[in-house]
C-alpha cells in the first residue's frame, strides 16, 4: 500500500528528515517500508514556454531546431516531436532536471548542435502514458511559470508499505491511522478533524424528511451492520487536482467526483464504502441477505461470478446489486447523469468475506480491508466524511432525511489491566509510569492509573482483533519507545545437560557411514510426487488419500509413498554424467493411516550404479556393515513368501529374480537390497547395473545405539588352522557349504571361512574352507587335531560336499 506524506501532513506535522530516513524510522517503529519514492520534484523545474521559431536541423531530416521564450530569455533545443508549431505552449525541462524515469538532463550535442534541455511529452513528465507528441498546454498558460504551480502539482513522498506487515492492523489501512503512528513515533500532536464534536456538527445536516431508501439486514448474513444516507442534487464532474493527485499517487485512477470521493475516503479512514446511483435502487429498499441458492452475478468489472447459496449479497427489491463487502455490480454505479445518490457504509464478518473472496479469486481493496476485522464505530464517521466531501464538491446538494441503518452493534470498550512492573520486566527497561502513559496516550489509549495497575481502554479500532492482552500493549510501548534502545542482556541460565536424540544420533551415524565407508554423495529429492512417476515406477501405492487440494502441478500433487520412485528418477538423471556412482538419501516417505490420517516414514535410500559390473555385492556388504555399526540385531535374507516386505510389494516389477534380499531388523522386515530389474531400468532409460537398498528406520530409530562390545582375553595357547577343499554343484551358494561347518559340534572350532571358490567343470566347483581351532585352556594335542579334522571332513561329506581328490 502506498502512503502519501503530503496527505499525512493534513493531520500531523512531520520532522525535517530525508525521505529515506523517514522510511527507516517508520520501519523501526511501525511497519515495513519497502520503498520510498519522491514525486513531482521535477515539476518545480519544468516550466511553461512558448515556441517562437522552428528551423531545420542541418544534419538530420527528422530533427528540428526549436527556439522558444522561457520568460527569462530565449533558448533552443533539438527536437524530434511531430507536433511542434510556432506559438504553441509546451513544458520545458532545463539541464539538471531529473525526470521520473530517473534520468537527469545534461548539456548534450545532438548531431552536432547543442541542445539546452528538453521539451516534454506527457509520459516524460510522468503525467500519463501519452508519447504522441509534446504536451500542448492551453494558450493562456503563463510563460515562465513552473508546471508544479501551473498544474497545482504538489511535491510528495510516497512510502510503499509491505501489506503483509500490517495484516494485523486494520487501523493502518487508511492515511488517518498511519498519521496517528507518525504522531506517536515522532512525538508530534495529531490533528483530530473527525472527532466527536465534528460528528455532532455533521449530524446537524440530517433532517426530518422520510429517507427514500430503507435498509434491512437479514439474520445470519455476513453483515455486521449496514448504514446509508441519501443525498440529492449532486452533479458529476471532475475532482479537484489535489484529490486526483493523491488518488493517483496511491494507485487509484481518478474517474469522477463521486467515485473519487468514495475511494478517497476509503484511503483516508480505511473503511470501504459504495455510493449508489439511487435511481438504480429498485423499490427504494435495500435488503442484505444470503443468495439462498447458487447462481451468477456480474460484477462491475463485467465478469460473471459464480455465487453459492451462502454468499451474502446487497439486494434491492428486485435482486442483488453487489457482493457484500467485496465488489459492486454493473448497474448500481453512478453515471454522468446521476443526480441522487445513496451512500453505503457497512461492516462485514472477516471470515465470511475471506471465504467468498478466496473462492471467487476476487481480492479487492474492500475485501482486503474487511478481512482484517474493521471497527463498526467508524461506519457513521465514514458516511459523514463522504458527505462533507460531497458538499465541498457539490455545494448545492442536500441530505434527504437521516442515517438509515440495521444491525449496527457497537462493542463495549475493551479495558486491559497493565502494570509497570510487567512492562519493564518484558522489555528489560526502567521506564517510569508517566512515560508508559505518555506513549499509550499518543496512540489514543485512555489510561486510568489505579495505584500499580493501569486500566487501559483500547480504542475501538484497535480492539477488533489486534489488541487483546497486556502483551499487545507492551509491544506498542516498546516500539514507540524504540526497540533499538533496549540493551542486550545475557539470560541467567539453569545448568542443563543436553544431547542429541537417539534418532538424530542414528541419522548422523548413517550419514557419516555412507560418506566414509559407502563413498557416497548425499542427495535430497522431492518429498512431493505425482501419479506419472509412480506409474512409471509401477508402484502400486498411489497415496490417493495424500493428494493435495491445491497442488502446484500434477507432478507434485501428492506425498511420495516411498523413496524408490524418486531414487529411480535421480538414478536416471545422474547416469548421464557418470559411468559409475553412489548416492544416498535420508528422506521421508508418507503413508495413509486410518487412525492418524498419515504417518511420516523415515527411510534411507541407497543407489549404486555401474555401467559395466554389478555393484550388488558392494551394496550387500555395505548394508551388513551399516547394520552392525548401528548395533542392530539384523538379518539379510532371501525373501520368504510367507512374510510380506512392507517397504516393497512382492509383485513389484522392479525386483530382480535372484539379486533381491529382505532386510530384517529386530525381527521385522523393514528394507531390501536389490538389483533393479533391467526392464524397470529401461523404463527409466537407465543403461547399466543399478542396485538399490532401502531401509525404513521408523520403528527402531528412537532406540539408542548401544555399544555391545564384549571383551574376551587374548588366547594364551596357540591355535591351529585346517584347510580343506570340497566339491559342490556350480549353483550351490558358497554360504551353504560354509553353513555345514558352522553347524559342526566342536567347541574348539572358533571360526570358519571360505578361502576360495574355483570352477571345476560346467556343473561343479571347488570350495576351499578354512577352520580355526583353539582351546583357551591348553595347547591342542596332535591326536585331537586329527580327530577334529576328520569330524569336519565327515560333516561336509555327509552334506554332499566330498573332499576333492588329488
Amino acid at each position, binding site marked *: 500500500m502506498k502512503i502519501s506524506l503530503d496527505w499525512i501532513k493534513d493531520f500531523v506535522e512531520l520532522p525535517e528528515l530525508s525521505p529515506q530516513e523517514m522510511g527507516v524510522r517508520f520501519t523501526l517503529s511501525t511497519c515495513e517500508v519497502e520503498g520510498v519514492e519522491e514525486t513531482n520534484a521535477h515539476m518545480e523545474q519544468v516550466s511553461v514556454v512558448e515556441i517562437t521559431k522552428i528551423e531545420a536541423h542541418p544534419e538530420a531530416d527528422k530533427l528540428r531546431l526549436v527556439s522558444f521564450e522561457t520568460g527569462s530569455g530565449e533558448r533552443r533545443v533539438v527536437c524530434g516531436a511531430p507536433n511542434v508549431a510556432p506559438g504553441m505552449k509546451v513544458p520545458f525541462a532545463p539541464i539538471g532536471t531529473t525526470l521520473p524515469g530517473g534520468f537527469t538532463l545534461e548539456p548534450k550535442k545532438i548531431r552536432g548542435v547543442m541542445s539546452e534541455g528538453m521539451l516534454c511529452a506527457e509520459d516524460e513528465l510522468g503525467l500519463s502514458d501519452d508519447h504522441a507528441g509534446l504536451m500542448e498546454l492551453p494558450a493562456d498558460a503563463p510563460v515562465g511559470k513552473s508546471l508544479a504551480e501551473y498544474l497545482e502539482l504538489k511535491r510528495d513522498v510516497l512510502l510503499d508499505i509491505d501489506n503483509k506487515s500490517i495484516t*494485523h492492523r486494520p487501523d493502518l489501512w487508511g492515511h488517518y491511522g498511519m498519521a496517528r503512528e507518525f504522531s506517536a513515533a515522532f512525538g508530534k500532536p495529531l490533528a483530530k478533524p473527525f472527532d466527536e464534536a465534528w460528528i455532532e456538527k455533521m449530524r446537524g445536516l440530517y433532517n426530518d424528511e422520510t429517507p427514500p431508501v430503507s435498509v434491512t439486514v437479514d439474520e445470519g448474513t455476513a453483515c455486521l451492520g449496514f448504514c446509508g444516507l441519501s443525498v440529492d442534487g449532486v452533479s458529476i464532474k471532475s475532482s479537484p487536482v489535489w484529490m486526483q493527485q493523491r488518488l493517483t499517487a496511491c494507485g487509484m485512477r481518478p474517474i469522477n467526483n463521486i467515485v473519487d470521493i468514495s475511494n478517497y475516503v476509503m484511503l483516508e479512514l480505511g473503511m470501504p464504502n459504495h455510493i449508489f446511483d439511487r435511481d438504480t435502487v429498485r423499490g427504494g429498499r435495500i435488503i442484505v441477505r444470503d443468495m439462498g441458492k447458487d447462481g451468477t452475478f456480474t460484477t462491475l468489472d463485467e465478469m460473471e461470478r459464480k455465487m453459492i447459496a451462502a454468499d451474502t449479497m446487497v439486494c434491492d427489491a428486485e435482486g442483488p446489486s453487489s457482493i457484500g463487502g467485496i465488489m459492486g455490480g454493473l448497474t448500481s454505479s453512478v453515471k454522468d447523469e446521476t443526480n441522487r445518490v445513496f451512500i453505503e457504509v457497512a461492516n462485514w464478518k472477516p471470515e465470511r468475506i475471506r471465504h467468498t473472496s478466496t473462492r471467487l479469486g476476487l481480492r479487492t481493496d474492500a475485501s482486503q480491508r474487511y478481512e482484517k476485522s474493521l471497527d463498526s464505530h467508524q461506519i457513521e464517521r465514514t458516511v459523514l466524511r463522504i458527505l462533507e466531501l460531497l458538499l465541498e464538491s457539490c455545494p448545492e446538494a442536500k441530505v434527504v432525511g437521516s442515517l438509515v441503518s440495521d444491525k449496527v452493534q457497537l462493542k463495549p470498550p475493551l479495558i486491559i489491566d497493565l502494570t509497570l512492573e510487567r512492562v519493564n*520486566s*518484558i522489555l528489560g527497561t526502567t521506564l517510569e509510569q508517566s512515560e508508559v502513559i505518555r506513549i499509550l496516550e499518543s496512540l489514543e489509549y485512555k489510561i486510568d492509573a489505579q495505584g500499580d495497575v493501569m486500566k487501559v481502554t483500547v480504542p475501538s479500532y484497535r480492539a477488533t482483533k489486534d489488541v487483546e492482552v497486556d502483551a499487545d500493549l507492551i509491544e506498542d510501548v516498546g516500539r514507540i519507545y524504540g526497540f533499538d534502545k533496549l540493551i542486550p542482556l545475557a*539470560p541467567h541460565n539453569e545448568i542443563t545437560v543436553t544431547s542429541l536424540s537417539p534418532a538424530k544420533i542414528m541419522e548422523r551415524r548413517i550419514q557419516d557411514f555412507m560418506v566414509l565407508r559407502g563413498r557416497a554423495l*548425499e542427495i*535430497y529429492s522431492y518429498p512431493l510426487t505425482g501419479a506419472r512417476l509412480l506409474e512409471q515406477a509401477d508402484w502400486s501405492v498411489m497415496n490417493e488419500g495424500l493428494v493435495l487440494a491445491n497442488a502446484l502441478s500434477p507432478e507434485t500433487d501428492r506425498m511420495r509413498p516411498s523413496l524408490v520412485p524418486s531414487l529411480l528418477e535421480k538414478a536416471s538423471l545422474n547416469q548421464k554424467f557418470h559411468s559409475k556412482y553412489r548416492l544416498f538419501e535420508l528422506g521421508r516417505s508418507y503413508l495413509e493411516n486410518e487412525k492418524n490420517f498419515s504417518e511420516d516414514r523415515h527411510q534411507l535410500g541407497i543407489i549404486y550404479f555401474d555401467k559395466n559390473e554389478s555393484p550388488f555385492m558392494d551394496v550387500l556388504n555395505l548394508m551388513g556393515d551399516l547394520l552392525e555399526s548401528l548395533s542392530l540385531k539384523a538379518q539379510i535374507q532371501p525373501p520368504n513368501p510367507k512374510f510380506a516386505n512392507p517397504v516393497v510389494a512382492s509383485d513389484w516389477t522392479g525386483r530382480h529374480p535372484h539379486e533381491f534380499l529382505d532386510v530384517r531388523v529386530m525381527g521385522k522386515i523393514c528394507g531390501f537390497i536389490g538389483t533393479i530389474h533391467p526392464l524397470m531400468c529401461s523404463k527409466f532409460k537407465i543403461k547399466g547395473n543399478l542396485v538399490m537398498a532401502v531401509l525404513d528406520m521408523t520403528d527402531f530409530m528412537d532406540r539408542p545405539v548401544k555399544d555391545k562390545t564384549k571383551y574376551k582375553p587374548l588366547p594364551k595357547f596357540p591355535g591351529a588352522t585346517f584347510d580343506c577343499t570340497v566339491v559342490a554343484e556350480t549353483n550351490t551358494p558358497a554360504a551353504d557349504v560354509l553353513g555345514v561347518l558352522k553347524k559342526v559340534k566342536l567347541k574348539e572350532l572358533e571360526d570358519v571361512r571360505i578361502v576360495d571358490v574355483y570352477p571345476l567343470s560346467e556343473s561343479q566347483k571347488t570350495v576351499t574352507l578354512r577352520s580355526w581351532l583353539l582351546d583357551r585352556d591348553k595347547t591342542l594335542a596332535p591326536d585331537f587335531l586329527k580327530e577334529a579334522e576328520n569330524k569336519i571332513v565327515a560333516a561336509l561329506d555327509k552334506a554332499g560336499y566330498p573332499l576333492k581328490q588329488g
Partner: protein
Amino acid sequence: MLQKLEEVKKEFDSEIDSVASMPDMAQFKADYIGKKGRLSALMGGMRDLSVEDKKTFGARANEVKQEMIAAVEKRSQAIELEAINAKLEKNRQDISWTDRITDKGQQAAGLHPLTKVTRELEDLFLSMGFDILDGPHIEDEYHNFEALNIPESHPARDMQDTFWFKDKKHLLRTHTSNLQIRGMETHKPPFKFVGPGKVFRCETLDASHEAAFHQLEGMMVGRDISVPHMIHFLRTLLSEIFKSELKVRLRPGFFPFVEPGFELDYECLLCGGKGCSVCKQVGWVEALGCGMVHPNVLRGGGIDPNEFNGFAFGLGIDRLTMMRYRIDDVRHLHSGNLQFSEQFRTY
C-alpha cells in the same frame, strides 16, 4: 713380513669395492680371511720371527683381520641393499596414477550442504543447552495454526500459502512453528529447544522460491525472560553462525504466535551498513522472525503465562546455506543432481 702384511691389506682395500655379489663376496672373504686365506698363511709364518717381532706382527695382523671383517660386513650389507633396490626398481609402480586422475566414475563422497549447515546449527544450539526436536511434515490444523493463535478466519493464514489435503483438515506444515506446540506437549518449563526441518508453501518455483524448504524453530521458556535476553541470545547465535561480531536491530514484525513480534536484521557484512546489492541498499539484512511467546500459545501448551514466559524464533536454513556457499538457485537443493552434490564433498 710386516711389509708383506701391509701389502696384503692394501690389495684387500683396493679390491673389496669391486666385489658385486654375495657369492663373490664369500669367495673374496675366504681368499683373505678364511682358514686357508692369505692372512692365515702369513700368520702361519710367525713361527720364524723373534719374540719381539712376533709381538709386533701379531698385534698388527690381528688388527688387520678385524678391519677386514668389518669391511666385509659393511660391503656385504651394501651389496644386499643394492640387490633389493634393483628389485624395487624393477617393480616400480606409477604413483602419480591416483584415483583422482583416473576415470572411474564418481570418486567424491560427502554430505548435502543443507545437512552440513543444519548440523552446524544443531551443534551450536546443543552447546548452549538446547534440545533438538523433530516433528511430522503432515500436520493437522491445530498444531500448524490454531494452537499458534491463528484461528480459522485469521488473515495470517493467507500470508502462508498452505498446501491442504483434500480433507481440508490436514496440511503440509507451513513452518517449523508446529514444533513449539509439539515441544510444549513433551517439555515442562523451564525448557529450551530447537527443531530444524522441512516446511512447505504453495509458491511458484523460481531461482529463489521453493515449495519445499527448511527452517529452524527455537523456543526458550522460563521465568522473567525479557526482550533484551532474546536480543542477546540471537546476536550471539548470528555472530557464531557468521563467525563475526554482528550488530543487530529489531523492528516490529507480525507473527500471531508472538507478542511483541519482531523481524531481526543484522548489519550487512559485505558493506558494513553502507548499503550494497546484497542488502538491497539498506545496510541491513533480514535474518529471522522472533518475539516473546504469545500468552495464548503458552496457555494452549498448558503453561501459565503469569508464571512463565519466553521467546521463540524461526530462521530459514536454505537462505543461510545459499549465502554460505553462494548457491545461485534454490532448486538445486532438491535436484538430486550429483554435479551439484559433488561440490560439497567431504573428500
